[in-house]
């Protein structure tokens, strides 16, 4: 036997959440062994949460929305009954809550959009034969970037680009590119070379091989990366408040600064609910968008 058999079923571990935004399923730690890890223990590190979660059970799909509705309802009822002074009123009146929520969703959506149109083409480019040698270098740079705290990055961008949502979005994009990039590369590299060879063998053009064979096969991993980026962005968006970018962070920081617990709790609960909702929707989407025929591969 090879003694490795046991030792390295392991190697899982990817996962970073620069500020506590859920990041699972991310294969970026050591670029060198990325491909190996992807094949060796594909399911554990790369796919999101528990291995068992993939199996759809109606409990799983109904539990989260039910829980969120209940939590929001309870918070709302409690908030209605809470005694608010003028400072607290100032923080939440005039549709400020809705505004913050809308801003938060916008920040998340816009930044995720940019992440996708940057990271996926970049991932594809870095797996083409001509650029393949640059991949370890690009991944090393991206990984090094992970050591930069999100808060510091965001504030530095604000100082550089000025106050407002734009700086926040730039920071969020920079931050969330890595997981999607890493998963795209891992997904494309993990494809059985005999498949691409077969595709070339029956006369497909390089573009055809990419569109008809490589991308569809890499979709599960790319989707996992997208989901990670989305959840990450919901979290980073809370920090936009420190650069005047708005979002639910406004409520939380107002609550902390003014010591008004109702405001703080309202903002926190809304943020948590939004993050869990986005995560839930993303895992749903991930499942529905996965190409048929690959459903059983996890």
């Amino acid at each position, binding site marked *: *036997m*090879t*003694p*490795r058999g*046991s*030792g390295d079923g392991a190697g899982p571990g990817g996962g970073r959440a620069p500020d506590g935004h859920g990041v699972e399923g991310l294969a970026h730690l050591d670029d060198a062994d990325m491909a190996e890890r992807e094949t060796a223990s594909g399911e554990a590190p790369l796919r999101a949460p528990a291995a068992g979660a993939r199996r759809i059970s109606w409990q799983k799909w109904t539990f989260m929305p039910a829980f969120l509705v209940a939590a929001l309802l309870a918070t709302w009822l409690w908030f209605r009954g809470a005694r608010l002074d003028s400072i607290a009123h100032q923080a939440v009146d005039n549709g400020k809550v809705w505004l913050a929520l809308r801003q938060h969703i916008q920040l998340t959506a816009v930044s995720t959009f940019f992440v996708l149109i940057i990271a996926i083409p970049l991932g594809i480019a870095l797996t083409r034969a001509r650029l393949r040698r640059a991949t370890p270098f690009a991944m090393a740079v991206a990984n090094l970037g992970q050591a930069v705290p999100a808060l510091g990055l965001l504030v530095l961008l604000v100082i550089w680009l000025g106050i407002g949502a734009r700086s926040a979005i730039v920071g969020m994009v920079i931050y969330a590119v890595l997981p999607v990039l890493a998963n795209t590369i891992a997904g494309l590299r993990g494809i059985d070379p005999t498949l691409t060879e077969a595709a070339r063998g029956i006369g497909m053009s390089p573009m055809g091989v990419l569109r008809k064979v490589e991308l569809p096969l890499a979709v599960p991993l790319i989707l996992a990366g997208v989901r990670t980026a989305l959840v990450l962005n919901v979290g980073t968006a809370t920090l936009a408040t420190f650069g005047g970018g708005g979002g639910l962070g406004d409520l939380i920081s107002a609550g902390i600064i003014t010591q008004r617990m109702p405001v703080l709790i309202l903002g926190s609960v809304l943020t948590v609910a939004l993050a869990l909702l986005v995560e839930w929707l993303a895992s749903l989407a991930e499942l529905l968008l996965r190409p048929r025929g690959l459903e059983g591969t996890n």
Partner: protein
Amino acid sequence: MPEPSGTSTTTPPAGTTGARIHLENLTKTYPGSHAPAVDNVNMEVKAGEIVIFVGPSGCGKSTTLKMINRLIEPTSGRIRIGDEDVTDMDPVRLRRKVGYAIQASGLFPHMTVAQNIALVPKMIGWSRARVASRVEEMLDLVGLDPREFHGRYPRQLSGGQQQRVGVARALAADPPVLLMDEPFGAVDPITRDHLQDELIRLQHELHKTICFVTHDFDEAIKLGDRIAVLRERSHIAQFDTPEAILTNPADDFVSGFVGAGAALKRLNLSRVRDVGVVDFPTAGIDDPLQDIFDLLRNGSTNELLLLDRNRRPYKWLRRGDLARAKQSLARAGTLVTDTVTRDATLRDALEAVLTDNAGRVAVTGRRGEYTGVVDMETLMNTVHELLEADRLEALEHQHQLQEQRHRETLLAQEGLDTGEGGAGGAA
């Protein structure tokens, strides 16, 4: 290659030899299935013998074996080792007294060879010094140079070497009983052959009680003192010596398992040491050329075996060779391509003799040193005698069996129950 403790291997270490194993009505039924996986096995393994469990995959042979050290707890029945009933003993304590070697060695990859071997002696509380010397001794016993292999990790060993270490670990605490679960299943055929020879040699020195699971009938014949041919649910189809099973299979199932070529397989049952190993004129490679010359010219033979400095067979040298090669030993003669050990089977020997154009093969000892030569004539005579003896034995056996059946029918007619286990080695 100096061996520091070469003598320690020739004397069996520290006393303990095999213990009797007794399985009584052993049954295993897995929860959620109504049919038992192992159904009412009765078997007695004598102290110091190798019993092979052989049978098709899924017949429960492995389950039966694992019930002996209670890796699988029996649903019912008793297990006795020696005079002790171990069915209800603390399994951890039991297992420390029973060696266990499995397929692909089961060595712990994060421990060195020495640490792996030292595990059980340490657990049962041997002193540090005793453990250390035991590790060296065990490595030497399985034919690995302690200084070279001591600090290596399993992944730095070949499959065959890993398997040797696996056996060394199983034997380290000198258990009276050794359980082996397809231990040689994952190595290539040539290595497997060597490992089998090694095991036979070890057993000659140690006299453990060994239960050995395999699905390879040839392996069973080669290694077993007795073979238990198992069919589904571990029912014993026949439990007897290899000779008896080959010449007299109990039923169609067994003969199907024995397969074709029983006569050739018979050759696997006898070893080179059982036949006449004859001496052959030899000369050392460092001997003066003139001596070799004289030996060839004056001796009764026209051929001699040239040995290298470690007394290993090196070249066959004929009378004319030296002259033709202009007196140069380096160029004269034909290189020895194949040798057999004293533990090799006659089949191996026959093969070697057949491929050698002069019809003989050199026999070597443990470290490859020359001990004699076997030739075609000796082999032919031996095989002939063997087959003749088998035929007689089989006739007698059949006769006995008929008598026994006769007795049993009589008893049955008298309404007495003789109980089960009639298949279990009634001869």
